[in-house]
């Protein structure tokens, strides 16, 4: 007979679930409100979601304080693992979500924003991602990942036009394949170690000295393929441009930032111990991935005709850049990852919001995508302020100091150099130069070309006050980020360091 299990409630550390539960409760609340009274205005839902996200954020602040004092928190039979990485990642996830959510307050009417389910799914996504980062159990990671992914597929499709369906289907199908990879990889590791918890796996593997290196590598290869999909590493990136193009700009921005940071954290947990324990193959492979991803996506971004697609490739490239942290593996590098991503999120938010603001319902004659470069030509004459802001975002993305991303880049390159990866640092730096070309392309269109005769008035079709506020805030953050870097860096470094990375 099975013995009854006595579990004290305290040892469960139920509180570790708080942030995710808040998001889930938020989602359910929205669904319930809709059941009680349907047809409410979207603004209500947006603000409701914002409130829950704020609560979520508050609980994270609480955790951060707790972590700073007591270190890593385990909960629920050690399934939940709230360490510095988890807290940092959740901060980025929640803040990113809070930034992108108000983009639904458009003046134009879009399909997805008219339905409360959108907001519920949005919150579910957040919850899923939060689960994903705050555990080292492969099962929970998988479930969290799928929760968020399935919600995102739906969110993309809810934009409701044929391109968004196409994007959702592509994303979904490839996601299903990646899920297969993930489960296979997890299976191999489980077969090797008898455990699905990363620290256990690491312990077991190092205990027998990686004697079954072939198995390990097969498992890692599968997991790498799976996270390569999530992190859009070449050649697993092919979904990214299409999905970005097909989804609404706001959604695209969200996808480019929030889910990725979750995947980064998981990748850090999964791969870094392997790199550290001298699995040369993984180091080399990651090196190749980083270089190829950065370079190839930059090269493809060069030839894009659509700003959104260009930004998609650029996001791939940035992801590749950040992946370098996994190879370097020092505290500095891991801190740089978070710093970079925090800076990147502001800027990318601004850039995508800008696209969102000038979104029109129908395509003009001769266009086959929403944000062709021609649309932006001569923008500085018609809308100087908007053009300047977009220009700032582009400069920041290109890594021109003193704008946001530069500091991330600087710190990451610094980490690479300090870690002894000077050649990698050079490659990364030179890639920024390639990337500068396509960011400049937009600047060239906005500032150096004459405006298109007809297109004058329609830039801000979709703008509303809240959108403008967000863009303005993003611009301010981008410009004055230098003052935020130091506190941020100290905060991040202490968290990363105390988590043992």
């Amino acid at each position, binding site marked *: 007979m099975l013995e009854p299990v006595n579990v004290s409630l305290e040892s469960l550390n139920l509180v570790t679930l708080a942030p995710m539960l808040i998001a889930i409760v938020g989602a359910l609340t929205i669904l319930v409100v809709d059941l009680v009274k349907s047809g409410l205005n979207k603004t209500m839902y947006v603000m409701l979601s914002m409130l829950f996200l704020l609560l979520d954020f508050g609980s994270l602040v609480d955790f951060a304080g707790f972590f700073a004092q007591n270190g890593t928190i385990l909960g629920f039979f050690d399934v939940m693992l709230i360490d510095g990485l988890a807290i940092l990642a959740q901060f980025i996830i929640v803040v990113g979500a809070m930034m992108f959510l108000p983009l639904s307050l458009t003046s134009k009417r879009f399909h997805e924003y008219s339905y409360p389910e959108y907001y519920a799914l949005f919150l579910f996504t957040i919850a899923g991602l939060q689960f994903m980062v705050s555990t080292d159990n*492969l*099962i929970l990671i*998988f*479930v969290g990942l*799928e929760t968020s992914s*399935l919600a995102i*597929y*739906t969110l993309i*499709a809810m934009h*409701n036009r*044929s*391109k968004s*369906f*196409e*994007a*959702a*289907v*592509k994303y*979904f*199908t490839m996601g*299903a*394949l990646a*899920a*297969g990879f993930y*489960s*296979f990889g*997890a*299976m191999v590791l*489980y*077969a090797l170690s*008898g*455990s*699905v918890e990363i620290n256990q796996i690491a312990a077991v593997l190092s205990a027998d000295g990686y004697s079954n290196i072939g198995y390990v590598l097969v498992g890692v290869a599968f997991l790498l393929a799976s996270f390569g999909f999530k992190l859009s590493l070449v050649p697993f990136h092919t979904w990214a*441009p*299409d999905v970005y*193009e*097909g989804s609404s700009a706001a959604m695209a921005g969200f996808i480019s930032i929030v889910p990725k940071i979750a995947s980064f954290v998981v990748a850090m947990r999964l791969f870094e111990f392997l790199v550290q324990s001298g699995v040369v193959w993984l180091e080399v492979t990651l090196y190749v991935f980083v270089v190829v991803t950065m370079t190839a996506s930059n090269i493809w971004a060069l*030839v*894009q*005709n659509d700003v959104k*697609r260009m930004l998609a490739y650029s996001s791939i490239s940035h992801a590749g850049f950040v992946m370098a942290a996994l190879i370097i593996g020092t505290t500095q590098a891991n801190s740089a990852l978070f710093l970079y991503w925090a800076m990147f999120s502001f800027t990318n938010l601004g850039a995508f919001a800008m696209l969102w603001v000038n979104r029109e319902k129908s395509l003009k004659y001769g266009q086959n*995508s929403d944000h062709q470069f021609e649309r932006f030509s001569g923008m500085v004459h018609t809308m100087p302020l908007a053009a300047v802001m977009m220009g700032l975002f582009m400069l920041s993305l290109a890594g021109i100091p003193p704008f946001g991303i530069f500091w991330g880049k600087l710190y990451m390159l610094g980490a690479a150099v300090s870690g002894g990866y000077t050649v990698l640092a050079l490659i990364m730096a030179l890639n920024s130069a390639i990337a500068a070309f396509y960011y400049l392309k937009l600047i060239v269109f906005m500032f150096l070309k004459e405006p298109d005769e007809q297109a004058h008035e329609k830039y801000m079709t979709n703008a509303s006050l809240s959108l403008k506020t967000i863009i303005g805030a993003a611009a301010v953050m981008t410009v004055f980020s230098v003052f935020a870097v130091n506190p941020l860096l100290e905060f991040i470094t202490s968290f990363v360091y105390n988590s043992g990375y």
Partner: protein
Amino acid sequence: MEIGLSHYLVLSTILFAIGLIGVMRRKNLLLLFFATEILLNSVNVAFAAISHYHGDLTGQMFAFFVIAIAASEVAVGLGLLIVWYKRTGKIDLDMMTTMRG
């Protein structure tokens, strides 16, 4: 002849490969989804086998969750297919190439 873990793993691999072939080969989305089910199923066999040979239940847990995930994927996937089909009348993925480059 003892059936060991390796046998199951090899079987799982073969099934997985079949799934991969299906994923790569199918142009009809619905049939492509079949192939993704095969992928997940093949892994389940392996999980069950490992669980058995290690005498550990975690593998079964994993397999259980994989089944749950597979089921949810079907729901969303079919939903997506339905809207797509309603809009275009096709579920052939060769028709889905408006975005490229």
